[in-house]
């Protein structure tokens, strides 16, 4: 604040009044303008695809479950909110018979998504999942599994992995030679 001792008290009062008037004028002017505020929940702002909220388990382009239950997400999770069991499917794929995320604990850090080698686990922009009952925040696999590929539509882990599944025999995957014939020394 200006504390010039040479100013008369009158000048001071006038200056203060002017400042008040300018302030009110600005407010008054905005009364007639369209507001910038987005009225949540009436208006739901589209969030960037990379926003980190509710976690999903995606599928590969052929519709198969991407999750191979490798335990990397549960290992990296800093709050230990992911648990699962892995098993073998009849077609040779590794999968999770059950997969559970406790969103009551989840801190949406996204480390699980970063660790996932098959692009199965992904965070989505959907953050509206608050519940009264804390047990309702424990999501099972059927709650998590979606029928699309999420952010990565194309990737199919089993086309690169080289293991025998319904996706292909040895030597039929991307960048693979035909299997070695161990009964012949010919190149």
């Amino acid at each position: 604040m200006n504390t010039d001792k040479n100013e008369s008290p009158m000048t001071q009062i006038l200056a203060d009044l002017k400042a008040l008037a300018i302030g009110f004028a600005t407010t008054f002017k905005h009364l007639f303008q369209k507001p910038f505020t987005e009225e949540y929940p009436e208006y739901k702002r589209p969030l960037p695809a990379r926003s980190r909220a509710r976690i999903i388990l995606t599928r590969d382009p052929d519709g198969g479950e991407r999750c191979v239950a490798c335990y990397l997400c549960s290992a990296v999770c800093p709050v230990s909110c992911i648990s699962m069991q892995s098993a073998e499917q009849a077609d040779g794929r590794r999968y999770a018979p059950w997969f559970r995320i406790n969103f009551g604990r989840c801190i949406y850090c996204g480390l699980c998504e970063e660790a996932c080698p098959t692009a199965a686990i992904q965070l989505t922009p959907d953050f509206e999942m608050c519940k009264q009952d804390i047990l309702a925040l424990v999501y099972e696999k059927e709650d998590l599994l979606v029928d699309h590929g999420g952010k990565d539509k194309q990737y199919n882990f089993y086309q690169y992995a080289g293991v025998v599944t319904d996706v292909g025999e040895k030597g039929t995957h991307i960048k693979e030679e035909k299997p070695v014939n161990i009964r012949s020394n010919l190149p």
Partner: protein
Amino acid sequence: MPKLIIDNQEIDVQPGTKVIDAAEQLGIMIPRFCYHPALGSVGACRVCAVKFLQGPFKGVQMSCMIDAKDGMVVSTTDEEAVDFRKYVIEWLMLHHPHDCPVCDEGGHCLLQDMTVAGGHGLRRYQGKKRTHHDQHLGPLVQHEMNRCIQCYRCSRFYQKFSGYRDLGVLQIGERVYFGRYQAGTLESPFSGNLIDICPTGVYTDKPSRFIGRRWDYERTPSLCINCSLGCHTVVSTRYREIVRQEARFSEAVNGHFICDRGRYGFFYASQEKRPRYAQINGNEVSWEKSIQTARDQLNRISQESGPGAVASVGSVRSSLETQAALSRLCQKKGWQGPVYWIDHGQEMNVKTAAAELADELAVSLRDVEQADYILAVGADPVNEAPMLVLALRQAQRMGAKVCFLDPRPIGLPFSFQHISVAPQAMDLILAHLLKETIDQDTIKGLEPHEKKIFDAIPNNSHLVSSNQKLLNAVANDIRLSQRLVIVCGTDVVSETIPERAAYFARLLAKMGKQVGLFYLLPGANAFGAALLSDDAPTFGRILDEIEAGLVRALVLVENDPYGYYPDRPRLERVLQQLDLLLVMDYLDVRTIQDADVFLPTLTLYEAGGFFVNQEGRIQKASIAYQGGHPISQFSNGNHPPRSFRNQIPGKEAQPAWQALIELANENSATPKQGVRADILAWLVKTHPLFSKLPPDNAFPSDGIRINPGKDIHFRSAADRLVVPTLASESADQMELITVDWTFGTEELSTRSPHLRKMESKPCVFMHSNDAAQLDISEGDKVAVRSDTGIVSIHVTITDNMAPGVLIIPRHQRLDWQHLGASKITVSKDQIRKIREEEPC
């Protein structure tokens, strides 16, 4: 002692130490794939490169190939060496598939660790990857050849170390392939070790395939109780279930490896049929009510008919704590027992072995590897104690000769001598060998009672003469040997053999040889049982007394007579006569159906405990998990229940020792804590041999040995070693013996669904001469009639066994309990060929 400098640290090592080991002693872990302390070095993987700055070698060299020498200055962190190792990793990863997420090795994979440690994150090579077809290697080992980095550990272990030939290297260059010539189950009973030694995921564990990751497991040091050797294991538990069992290194017992029976024999602990709740007359009741009922009834019977009307049977698979608690209970109440063996002959053999195994004669399994001559009497290692095969193989690789004196068709993965004689003649042959071997000076210096035994040995008989040449060669080899081990079985042998073997060993020691005595016992804690059941009645006598109405109550502690008693109809009849049958067990044994009161107990994984192996070594198993229904069973394979509870479901069972102490105490409020310490204190106080027992927190990992000293003998043995008598040799008579098999006879491992796939069909072994006489050919089905029943079984004909002997496995899928006794004599007209469909 060479002195060298590694990374600016000086160290003295034993001559012959490799530089890689010298570094390890300093705590510097040089990366390695092909090098393994048990398998030696081959220099195949090139990843242990270090830089030699001074000394006899210069530049980058493989540290596993070079012996530590004086004046060496080695750097493991030199830029050139680090760079070299980095390129090696990149090169090993050229063809490595992109399948870590679905590989069971992920999480404890050496290649994964080294790749991350070397900083190889991105693949620069853009070409195609070489691929291989995989083979079906049986129910235990999963094959995935794409992952191979050609370290040769598997073929070196399989062929060189253990001696089996059906898995090895095929092809050349970058097409090198490790597998079998044709897909099929691996022949070696040690195939599970391939999983442990493979530095990456070529061989992975099939029973635990796709179940979990190493980092999620609770890993606990434990013991294998599937035979008497007591190999060290580490169990991995997750979600109230044991997932996997692996070998744990032990300097004194098993070294780096274990056998498949031990590795996959743990599934009984999480069997779905396992009884988990106390029962009265087949109805589930609470633990307290069960104990109360049992205690009241036992007291009532004791009061009415005297304490002798209660008899107890303990088990050789129980921990030392349980055995001690049972002894204490019997002493306190005046009950009969505890009896540990259903078969009296076996009981005598084990007790003799425990008494004769003096401290200076006892050798560990690893000591057997150092022997230069091994004489095995009545022992069939592959079937009775598989890990002994690996120890014998190591001795044989170092030039030792191995000789077996046994009626059975011994199968070992290396060459050995086999004197196959009928069980009754074994003592005679052994005595003959003894007489041929011991020199005159030693005989002159013998004590009178020992001299008496020696003089009682008869001269050659016709039996000896038929094997004369071989016996002379063996006697000669024994005379020439310096470090000799006598392995002695206690199953098929007659009562005098364990003593004779010990006598032989003592005399050889007097000749100035370094002699070891190595008994094989039936049961993981048979030694402990032998020490604790000094003057117990026999099981046969207890049955007689039940029949006579003298014994009215029977307490069975983790012992199932139905599995061992050779006359099932009688046993069924006798157990019905009891007023009270109290059964405690953790297995789904047949006796539970007959039990009036049943108490569920805990396995060694849930209760821990001490076990005394066959060389008198007390070893400790830690508590691996708390027990209860495994989550996979509780939730039916689906996600775990969403409700909370205070108790672990299905965790009513207590350690057997707890139940026994609660039975002993009059008031029902027995504390759950401190009971074990009480029992051990009692044991230390009452039994002088256990006085050295260290406290739990200071218990050495290799255990402590408690062999009797030179002069301690439980029974005076000297007078019992009489002249071996030979039963009348009639061409018409055949000796029938029942034996153990690696897979299919042992009580615990037969409850493993995976080992059940390894079992072969029960068959009777017969010598080709006998088969020709009886007009029986391979694969025929015969009915063997004994006094008590008929056993029908397929025939396998071999020349590799004693003639005049029938060998029947005590197979779980065979009703051998109709034979009437574990060893019987049958005449040839009691063996009849039957058609396949004919009922027997």
